[in-house]
Structure formats: C-alpha cells, structure tokens
C-alpha cells in the first residue's frame, strides 16, 4: 500500500443510486482526491456493520457508506435499515476507540455527481486531519 493514498478510505456504494452517482461524478468530471476505494453493493442495507468494523480492524483510515435517499431505495426500504444500523455503529466505534468521525453514511442519488465529489473531498480532508490510524 503506497504512502500516497493515505488516508485510505473505503467506500461502499449502493448500485442503484450512489454508485451511479459516483459514475455521474466521473462523466461530469467532478474531481476528488484519489484516496477512496469504491466497492459496489446492491443496497446500503447489504453492508454488514461487522464488515465496517473489519475494515477499521485491518487498518482502513475511514469508511463511507452511501445509499439512495430515504424513500428512494430501489428495494423500497433497504436504506432505512442501514440508517438505523449505522447510527448505532457510530456510537459503538467510539466505544471501540475509533473516532466516530472516521465513519460516515451519506445519501447520494444517481444524479448527484457533484454532491458525491464534494462529500468525498470533505471526508478525505477530515480523515487527513484525523491522521492515519497506526494499528498495532
């Protein structure tokens, strides 16, 4: 892992809104820092909190989960579950000694390329401030 991509951010993007939103950022050339590594999942509701914990455990500096706006879920209610789950997770992270600012959940629709770029830029900036996590 090259030093340039620190902080390393892992992004879980739902296939229907946010992944498409990230594509839109591309087609409209909305530049953002290269730190994020995007994984495609069918729905933000598919992202297992334990997987997030695993990411941190393995040394990721920050994790972003992005899904359809509440109410717009392709599977009608998936993002409601993720919203509740990850609200809890943030608290849990703190408890585990991982700053909860390192984890974010955002709603990005397929048309919000600009917004996606902004979110990633801001998040990268904040993550940089928090510094890289030296896992023992």
């Amino acid at each position, binding site marked *: 892992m090259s030093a340039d991509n620190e902080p390393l951010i892992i992004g879980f993007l739902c296939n229907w809104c946010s992944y498409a939103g990230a594509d839109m950022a591309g087609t409209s050339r909305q530049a953002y820092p290269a730190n994020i590594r*995007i994984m495609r999942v069918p729905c933000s509701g*598919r992202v297992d909190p334990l997987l997030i914990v695993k990411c941190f455990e393995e040394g990721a500096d920050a994790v972003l989960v992005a899904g359809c706006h509440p109410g717009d879920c392709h599977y009608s209610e998936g993002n409601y579950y993720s919203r509740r789950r990850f609200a809890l997770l943030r608290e849990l992270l703190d408890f585990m000694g991982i700053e909860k600012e390192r984890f974010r959940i955002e709603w990005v629709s397929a048309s919000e390329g600009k917004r996606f770029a902004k979110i990633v830029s801001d998040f990268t900036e904040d993550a940089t401030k928090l510094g890289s996590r030296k896992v023992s």
Partner: protein
Amino acid sequence: MSRIGVFICHCGTNIGGVVNVPQVVEAAKRMPLVAYADENKYTCSEVGQASIRDAIKEQRLDRVVIASCSPRMHENTFRRTVATAGLNPYLLEMANLREHCSWVHSDSKDATAKAIDLVRMAVAKVARHESLFPKQVGLTKRALVIGGGITGIQAALDIASAGHEVVLVEKEPSIGGRMAQLDKTFPTLDCSACILTPKMVDVSQHPNITLLTYSEVKEVRGFVGNFEVDILKKAKMVDYVKCTGCGNCWQACPERIPSEFDLGLGRRSVIYIPFAQAVPNKPVIDIANCRYERYLKWKETEEGPEPPQCRICEGVCPTEAIDRSQRDEIVTEKFGAIVVATGFKTFDYSVYGEYGGGRYPDVISSLQLERLMSAAGPTEGEVLRPSDGVHPKNVVFIQCVGSRDDKVGRPYCSKVCCMYTAKHAVMLKEHDPEVQCYVFYIDVRAGGKDFEEFARRAQDETGAVYLRGRVSQIYQEGKKLKVLGEDSLMGRLVEIDADLVVLATGMEPSDNADVIAQTLNISYNTYNFLIEAHPKLRPVETQTDGIFVAGTCVGPRDIPDCVAHGGAAAAKAVVLLSQDSLTTDPLTSFVDPMKCVGCFACKEVCPFNAIEEQITRDGRTISSVNESLCKGCGLCVVACRPGAINLRGFTNQQLLSEVLTLVGR
C-alpha cells in the same frame, strides 16, 4: 486452482491518458491466481472482445476481470463476450477505472496506484465467483385489470385482443368510470358517452374478457407470472342470467335516494343501474337502502316499529331474476400480470370554508356542472342552478381548487382543470348565449395538441373574461353570490355578483388507492398516487415485476393520455404474457439449511416477501428463499445472525476478500 485473466482498457485516452496502463498490467501479472494480463485500446470494440475470447481459449482462463468503464455501462456486454467463449457469464468481474478513477483524478501517480488497487479488489472478488444459472419458471397467461374506467377498458381490450384472457374488476355496478360522467370532452367537444359507450360494449362482448362489476380485489399472493388473487364479488341480489335489463324494477322501485353518479344533484332508485348506458345494463340492489332488506334486518330482532315490506321489484320482474339468497362471495383466480387503473376522484371542496364549505347550494364542482350540462343528467341538459332552478347568467369559475395549494395539502397541478374550465365556458355560452363567464386563474396551462388554441377560443370567441387571481372569499348576498378576487394584472380588487360559482376541483386518487397498493406491494406517494418504476423510462411498470400501473391512479392525466397509458400498460403485460417461461436473475440470496435456526429475522426485513418457511427432513422449520421473488438486495444477509443466508455475486466472503486485499497486511 483457478486461472484469472485481466484485461485493462485504455478507452482511447479516457483511461490511458491518466492511468499508466502498462504499469497496471505489470502489477496485475504479479497478483495471485492471475494467469494472464493484457491491455486494449477499446475493450468494448469487436476487436477488443475478440482478443478476450481468444485469450480465454488459448490461456485456458476460467475467470475474467475487465478493468475499463463502469459495470453499469458494459457488464452485460462483457458477460455475453465471456459466454461466447464458453465461460459462465457470472465468472466476470469489472474494475471501474474510468468513471471512478481516470475521469476524476488528474495525478497520474495516484490514479495508477488506485487503478492497481481496484484491479486487485476485482481479482480477489472474481476468484470467489461461482457459475450461476438463471432459472426458468412457468407463468399463467391471464391478466387482471383493476378498474373499469377508460384506462382499464383500454388496457383490457388491448390485452384481450392480443389473445390473452382478461378479468376486469370494477367496484361500481357499471364500468365507464369518471369519463361516463362527463358531458363533452376537450378540445374537440365530442360527446363523452358517444365515444365511450362503444368501448364499454366491446368489453362486455369480447370473448377473452370476463367482466366482474360490483367487485373488489381483496388479496394478492404469488409473484410475476404466477399471481393468485382473491376477488370479492358483492351480492347484487339479481340473477344476471335471468335478468334481461328490461328496467321494470328500477322504474317501479318506490325508494329514491341521492344518486352518486349525479353527485347528489339527482336521485336514483334502490334497485338501480348508475346511468342509462351502464354496462352491464343490469341492476343491483343497494342493500343498505332497500326497504325489504331493512324489514329482514328488523325481523331478526323485532326491535322498534315494523318497517313496511316492499318487494315491488320482485313483483314486476317478468323473469323472476331478483335473488335475495345472494351473498358476498370471494373467488380466487390465477394471473400472470396485473394492471392497476383505479383512477381518481375529485377533490372535496368542502374544506374551503372561505368558499362556503358546501353551505351554498349554488357553489358547485366542475363535475357537478358536467352532470347539469349532460342531456342524460338530472336536468336533462338544462343548466339550472341547484338553489332555485333558474338559468344562471353570471357564472364565475375558480381554478386550482384543491390544486397548487399547500394549505389543503395539494401542492401539485391537476393538469386538466384549465382545459375543462375553458370547455365549460365555451359550452355554457352554447347552452345560453346570455351567460357571461368569469374565470379566475393563476396560470392557464394548455400544453397539449390543440389545447392552447381551444383555451384561447374560450376567451376570444365566447367572451369569457379571464381574471388572473385566486378568489379569496365567496358569500351569499340575497340570491347572488358575492365573489371577492384580485385582478393581479391590474393590481385592483374585483367583486362579482354571481348566480353560480363553479369550482375547478383537482384530481386525487380514488379512495383506498393506498390499501390496494399495499395489497399489491407497490409503492405510493404522500397523496396516494401510485409510483412508477421510473418516471421517464418505465412509466407503467412498478418495482414489483408483473404489476403495471396506468391512468390517473399514477398522477393527473387527461383522457388521451389515459388511453395511451392504458395501451402502454397493456403492451408491457402482453410482452410478459407472450413468453412461455420467465428467466429469473440468479443474483439472489440462498439459505444454508444446516446453519439456519429458523428465527426468521430475514423474513421480517425482506421487502419482497421472498422468504418462505420450509420444514426440513429432520423436522426443523427454516427459511428458504423464493428465488422468483428475491431481488437480491441482501437485507436478509445482514439480518441473519447465524450467517446462514448469503447473496450470490455479493457473498460475505467476496466483500471481505475485497477489503482484505486492500488493507490486509
């Protein structure tokens, strides 16, 4: 030991211009299980695809990673490519080097580093891919159409004419819907009944259509191609086999109550057909209001005074068709596709206290005016005002009643009011040249073929005075109605003494639109309008396969749009029904029977009721996934505590391995 081939695309300079592709190729070659790596100028080109096919054969590759554009762009293309080379199409994984990398990063070094990571993730994931095979399921080649308005009629006729059986369910005693209540239609002014009635008759005579009037859909089970529907057939108390529709009964019936069809302006008998051209042209007994039924009720308890026994209808019926033994019954039918066309009702203007809240008899809705103008209406086409039956001379129209008004929770535009009001202005003038119409509007929305011309006609030819402003108050002053408005173009207040005020009430979904949506498991918005799968590209589909929506139950529409919409829904249904079997997407979740403890947490989160209970040989009740219903969202996977459920194409192991290749040491 699998052999993975990696193909990296330059996409001209789109990727190659930023990402150092050769470097990525070299890195790929050093990745575990990668047997071959190569680059292409344009992978999606025929040349590019050919090179992949050749490589698969020559290098005996059993898995493929293509690092190019977004999988949303070309995944299917490349699945076909590897398939033609004899590989299972699901043994492909893509890395998005364009939209997610070269197009958003300018620093070549960073971009290349990221590209390598993305490829590494894809390789790690594809190594855990399995061959997947779409399933085939059979289907019932019958369609259910819910709602017998013009939209449902059109859909039913089209599906039936394509050779499929159709059951048309209508909750009223007759089909025809709102259009049957209209007098004339804009902008052509042809008589509504004259163009609708033939279609209604076609429905009743079509060999492929079964018409169930006075019936409602109660429950829906199953999935696309294989729906099972419970339909409630309300007791008509009339044997339609014997009944000839001679009309003796409804003429003889002594009871008269306000007619729903005439919106309270006229009265109807208790054994009745809603209107003269009703289809079927056979009556039902409105049990709640029938004297004899009331007597029978009394008989059970004998409390209170004995009501009169009537049974006149039975006396005058020449064919003894009155059948009091009838009871509500539920029939269950099988369908492959369902078209929902439950239509609209007009906004209840009584919430507008400032317009009298229904206190003033001469403040009526546009639909009521239609009944007054209709030759078949309560006044035989004479426009007489309800209070004293005189011909109104000064008529004020108020637009946007129950539209574009947050105050009453209806911020949307109902689309048709501007046009039908123009129509009313024109027609009133034809009815009585002395009539002067005043139309209070906010904007005249006349988008549509010949609409603007028609809207102009109301002003240019019939001299209707259009005033730009919303009326604030109406109050009775003697025999006149005082109407207070502002002409916002002059910035001056306007007071009109009107004989009749017509409120252009907006559209809202029929009662229980939400209930029906719930039974069908399709979504609806805050106003209970049904939500289409995509507002532009999938206007008649829903998120539930095999269920289609059409007409005003989706949103305000005029008649031509409804007919087109109904036709479109029919076409989609026919496409579905004309298949011999249905292919299901294999990217579904599946249960490991050994791990499942039968807690059914999965069942609770599943939005598609795809989780079914299954009894194992050793007698345990566990979940199993109905793969025809599963859409592969993966909610169940996360909900499953023992980790018994997994999602094909996105298994826990696959996601984990992606993460580990990224951060694992």
